[in-house]
């Protein structure tokens, strides 16, 4: 039936050339986004270089701040860091190092920063990954419900609770949860990721048990954003004409919501989730510190208190790269969800 509508020869050719052009456009779109991310990444590396080496005047003094170091040791450090070379040379060494995943050696642990990151990255991925899934699911679900019954008592309580939790400093909430549920009621461990001596499959419930409080803390301070964005974009959509069309078709409200309103409202929300994902990694610094969760955040905190500059610098690049990567993912995902911006 569709074939009968197709005029014969010229049109398929036309369609072909249109497709070619859209292929080029698509390639260009992805190229631009990828290029933008690389430029941002370069800017981050540049920033970190200048921030930690140039601003303080004498980096060695900053590094050794508050510690007794002899003149000879200082000279040694200068040579180690190539500070006797020109700025351009230093940057080149630094840049090539970063690109080879050589982030220098930690003062504090006397180990390559990359190794330290490798050791600590999985606990963070576990905690942050779980928290993002839980908070996104919770936020979106509550957001949809809130928008659908907007103005109702439940909606107002919902929004109020979310806004209040958003205003809570995560570290403080963590402390309160420890006071009540760990040191108070003793339901959960106060710190760490696993108990000593637990082996094999037993580790899974053990880690889960340790993860409850940090997870609750992270979810509590993050889900409000998803809720508010989902709620307001769904409210926007609900006033739209196509929703009236859908209702006029005789669809049940539930179907109108699921099939028409939510897919449209999801667009801005999904972007936000991915953009946020990058930041949440850093947001875990405080929660990991409070709960002694052996991840990157805790590593960062320990680097700060020394201060262990190569470590802090390396994590700075890593955290920023995470944000850039997630922004890129959001950019690439958006056209998949929204045909209007499909290149």
């Amino acid at each position, binding site marked *: 039936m569709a074939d009968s509508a197709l005029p014969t020869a010229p049109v398929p050719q036309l369609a072909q050339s249109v497709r070619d052009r859209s292929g080029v456009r698509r390639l260009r779109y992805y190229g631009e986004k990828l290029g933008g991310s690389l430029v941002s990444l370069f800017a981050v590396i540049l920033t970190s270089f200048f921030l930690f080496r140039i601003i303080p005047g004498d980096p060695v003094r900053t590094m050794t701040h508050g510690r007794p170091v002899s003149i000879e040791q200082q000279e040694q450090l200068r040579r180690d860091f190539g500070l006797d070379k020109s700025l351009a040379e230093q940057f080149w060494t630094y840049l090539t190092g970063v690109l080879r995943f050589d982030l220098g050696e930690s003062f504090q642990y006397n180990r390559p920063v990359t190794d330290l990151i490798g050791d600590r990255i999985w606990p963070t991925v576990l905690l942050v990954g779980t928290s993002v899934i839980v908070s996104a699911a919770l936020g979106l679900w509550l957001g949809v419900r809130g928008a659908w019954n907007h103005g109702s008592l439940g909606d107002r309580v919902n929004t109020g609770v979310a806004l209040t939790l958003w*205003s809570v400093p995560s570290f403080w909430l963590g402390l309160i949860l420890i*006071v009540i549920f760990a040191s108070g009621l003793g339901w959960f461990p106060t710190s760490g990721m696993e108990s000593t001596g637990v082996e094999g499959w037993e580790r899974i419930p053990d880690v889960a048990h340790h993860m409850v409080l940090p997870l609750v803390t992270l979810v509590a301070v993050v889900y409000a954003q998803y809720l508010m964005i989902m709620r307001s974009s769904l409210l926007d959509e609900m006033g739209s004409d196509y929703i009236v069309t859908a209702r006029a078709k005789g669809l049940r409200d539930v179907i109108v919501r699921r099939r028409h309103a939510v897919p449209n409202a999801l667009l801005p929300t999904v972007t936000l989730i991915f953009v946020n994902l990058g*930041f949440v990694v850093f947001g875990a610094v405080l929660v990991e510190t409070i709960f002694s969760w052996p991840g990157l955040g805790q590593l960062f905190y320990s680097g700060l208190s020394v201060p262990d500059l190569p470590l802090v610098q390396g994590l700075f690049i890593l955290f920023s790269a995470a944000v850039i990567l997630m922004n890129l993912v959001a950019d690439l995902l958006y056209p998949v969800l929204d045909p209007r911006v499909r290149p």
Partner: protein
Amino acid sequence: MNGLVWARRRRTAARFWSQYRQNRAGVFGLVVLALFVLTALLAPVLTADNALSVTRPPGSPLQGPSADFLLGTDRSGRSMIDLIIWGSRVSLTVGFWATFISIAFGTLFGILAGHFGGWGSSLLMRVTDWFLVMPSLVLGVALAAVLGRSLTTIIVAIGVTSWPTTARLVRAQTLAVEARPYIERARALGGGHLHVMSNHVLPNVMPIVLAQTTLMVGSAILTESTFAFLGLGDPTTASWGATIQAARDVGAVSSRMWWYILPPGIAIVLVVLAFTLVGRAIEGVLNPKLRER
């Protein structure tokens, strides 16, 4: 002519207020804010001279609530209530100044980028993108680690990392305003760039900036407490975040000294929530579509 303008502005303000008043949460936020501002201003009157003294504190350390100290004392023997009162000064100062920096830069760059367009605008937006992807806390923490620990560092760190959000918003708003016909007319009548920007664009962009400002103060205060908790603040100032950090240091968590941990946190939540509610209420008045929410 001028009197006419003023009369119109007064009327606008009156209308704004009558709509704002209908938002109960917004009014609640405003009242809470007023209380905190009052507390911050009157801090020297409300507390004794030696309230913050570590060398000759008013009480003995780590006492629970009593008739003398309603919320107990900290590790140096200072009254928790006094610490909260003085802490409001730190929070509000940091919040206002950081926001001021952020808004000033953001508005300036946003209007410039929106008004002139072209490659300069693209470059400016690229720069804001760089700042946007950098986790503000990381950059702030790095700055603080490098510049030393002080309130100014925290203010600069927050201000410098939060302006891109404002810039993007202002740019979008500028583009919207410049598309209106009366801008065309102002140009046709010979209005220069500066005239158009300051007399036409700025007044129209300001309302949205106002809403953004209020929301931003809240998050700046939250960030400040985080910085202080990470030990990046001035160790001698009695900030709420620093107080919570001190409580953690002395083991208030395991010995369950709730009066040491609870009050500063509640103060932070109240102030941040108040700013958020006020910001949302302003937004609601400015954008009627949002009002029902």
